[in-house]
């Protein structure tokens, strides 16, 4: 398998993990060539996760903004986001490899909840690493993980957020790889993780592509998804990459604004770096230390981005834009009021960009947006924001 996407990707890990990665790559290649593996995966996707989920034509948004706006409803999945698609795939692989324990990192808690869920379902011991800051702002998800039997470890080093939780998960993995599988939640990390996460998330665009052809008899003009590490977006783009007439947009978090320096847009400045086992665009300071990301959304609060996104940016296949905290919160409220859907703050970034994009498009054009998760987990953050304070400051 190819380890690089242009100059990006690779395996920047300790020597002690190189054989672990080789073992993982081999097991993964065997699994994806085995139709029984996919049979089992698809069974859980349908009967457990509740797929396929709808591609919903949002009529009131369409009326207000012009082009037809379709929402791919990942928020309706079991556990409330797209994260479960990848977790089920990786845990089935872990089982196949004879591992008995899983570890995961989590930012907003969605991937942690999904991993805890999968671990309960497949009877595995689960430990989730979560930054202390994130534990405080996502207490509901912490409790959820504990209810599901997972141990949540508070990470109190560095910035105490997702980046540091990932560092700690990597350290534990380097020590315990013999019996432990590291379930990475985004399209990041050393090869083969970015490829694997993309593969398990591409179910999003496989369904969406089929659904839009059924409903409209043609492909969409634009596809939009939010992008932190970039797992829902790479899954949403995967099946459209070869459809050259479909424009693809990844939406990063601009936080308080790119110009303020308080943002989470790894690609805005275009500075490649090496973190978490990969080479990709990375927020860093003048000395090459990783800079803290800022976003009201814990799920996008990550200084890097998946390596394939860096490649898709440089080749021009995908356009990456960014949306501020304020723009995303306005969009979030709009979806609540117009459609009766409370989106995750992450997904609201994509929505805010859809509104901008719609202004440049014609009435009969079609936009598909990945509604990657539901906003139940975010109601405290939204309440605080509406109350005039940003909990993340």
């Amino acid at each position, binding site marked *: 398998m190819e380890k690089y996407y242009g100059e990006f990707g690779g395996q920047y890990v300790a*020597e002690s993990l190189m054989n672990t990665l080789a073992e993982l790559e081999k097991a993964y290649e065997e699994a994806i060539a085995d139709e029984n593996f996919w049979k089992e995966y698809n069974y859980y996707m349908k009967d457990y996760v509740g797929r396929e989920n709808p591609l919903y034509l949002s009529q009131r948004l369409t009326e207000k903004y012009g082009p037809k706006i379709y929402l791919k409803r990942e928020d309706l999945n079991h556990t409330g986001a797209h994260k479960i698609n990848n977790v089920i795939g990786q845990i089935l692989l872990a089982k196949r490899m004879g591992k008995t324990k899983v570890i995961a990192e989590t930012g907003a808690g969605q991937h942690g909840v999904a991993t805890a869920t999968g671990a309960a379902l497949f009877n595995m011991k689960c430990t989730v690493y979560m930054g202390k800051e994130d534990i405080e702002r996502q207490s509901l998800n912490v409790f959820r993980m504990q209810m599901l039997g997972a141990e949540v470890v508070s990470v109190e080093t560095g910035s105490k957020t997702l980046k540091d939780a990932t560092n700690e998960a990597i*350290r534990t993995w380097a020590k315990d790889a013999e019996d432990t599988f590291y379930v990475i939640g985004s399209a990041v990390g050393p090869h083969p993780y970015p490829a694997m996460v993309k593969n398990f998330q591409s179910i999003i665009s496989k369904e969406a592509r089929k659904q839009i052809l059924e409903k409209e008899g043609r492909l969409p003009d634009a596809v939009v998804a939010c992008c932190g590490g970039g797992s829902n977006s790479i899954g949403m783009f995967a099946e459209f990459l070869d459809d050259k007439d479909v424009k693809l947009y990844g939406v990063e978090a601009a936080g308080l604004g790119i110009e303020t320096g308080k943002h989470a847009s790894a690609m805005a400045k275009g500075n490649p770096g090496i973190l978490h086992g990969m080479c990709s665009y990375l927020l860093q300071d003048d000395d090459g230390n990783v800079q803290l990301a800022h976003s009201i959304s814990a799920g996008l609060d990550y200084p890097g981005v998946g390596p394939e996104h860096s490649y898709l940016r440089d080749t021009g296949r995908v356009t990456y834009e960014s949306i501020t905290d304020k723009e995303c919160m306005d969009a979030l409220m709009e979806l609540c009021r117009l459609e009766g859907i409370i989106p995750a703050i992450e997904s609201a970034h994509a929505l805010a960009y859809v509104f901008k994009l719609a202004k440049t498009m014609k009435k009969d054009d079609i936009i598909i947006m990945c509604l990657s998760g539901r906003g139940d987990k975010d109601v405290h953050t939204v309440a605080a924001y509406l109350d005039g304070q940003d909990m993340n400051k």
Partner: protein
Amino acid sequence: MENRIENRMNRLQAEGKKAFITYMTAGLPDMETSINIIKAQYEAGVDVIELGVPFSDPVADGPVIQDASYRAIQQGVTLAKIFDMVEELRKSCEVPLVFMMYYNTINHYGLDNFVQKCQNVGIDGLIVPDLPFEEQGLLNTALSKVEGAPYLLQLVSPVSTDRIPMLLENAKGFVYCVSSMGVTGQAAHFHKNVRDYLGKVKSVSKIPVMMGFGIRTAKDVEMFEDIIDGAIVGSYFIKYMEENNYDLQKIKEYISKFKTEF
């Protein structure tokens, strides 16, 4: 141009002695004291010093070095300042020096500039824990362009197994054998097959074999003395220096005690 590590290793071998190597985070407690600590160690007989270049995300390090790294960054320690410090040090000290650093710091500085600067100030070796053999191509190209460039030292782990011959084929300076799994600074709790593994590395290696991770005193490595050519102490040494308020006399005592007992 001669490499100070290689010279030192040759001398030790001729004298039938073991190497003692320490790790310290550069710039702690401050740049000036760092220079004095390096000199004191050299006077006390240390063979090589690993200088840790602090990085924001030290994934290969345990809590002690993570914390040291974090504090150094807070104090404003940067690669540029460390280069200045080494330049100053080299006016009066010929200790073999190795940078232990993460790849992003090098990449951000620019590979060619970095290598040239290392050569200018007198860095003899590099340990880059997140740059495994397969990713070393670009750095090796940069290193090969400069005469007297530092050696890129190879790390070997207890689970490297079938990779060992590949890792050692063109290795220079010394081989760094990680004694336990995971990160730096765990207590002397070595991987179960560490003896077999060290033996295997030794049998393949054309250069001296050093053991590191989790070592505190010469006693910890006594049972491997027949195999290894030297030992590396990192986290324990950092803690020891802190507990003794960076007292140069105490540092010298520790170094010479380890050297004598080893």
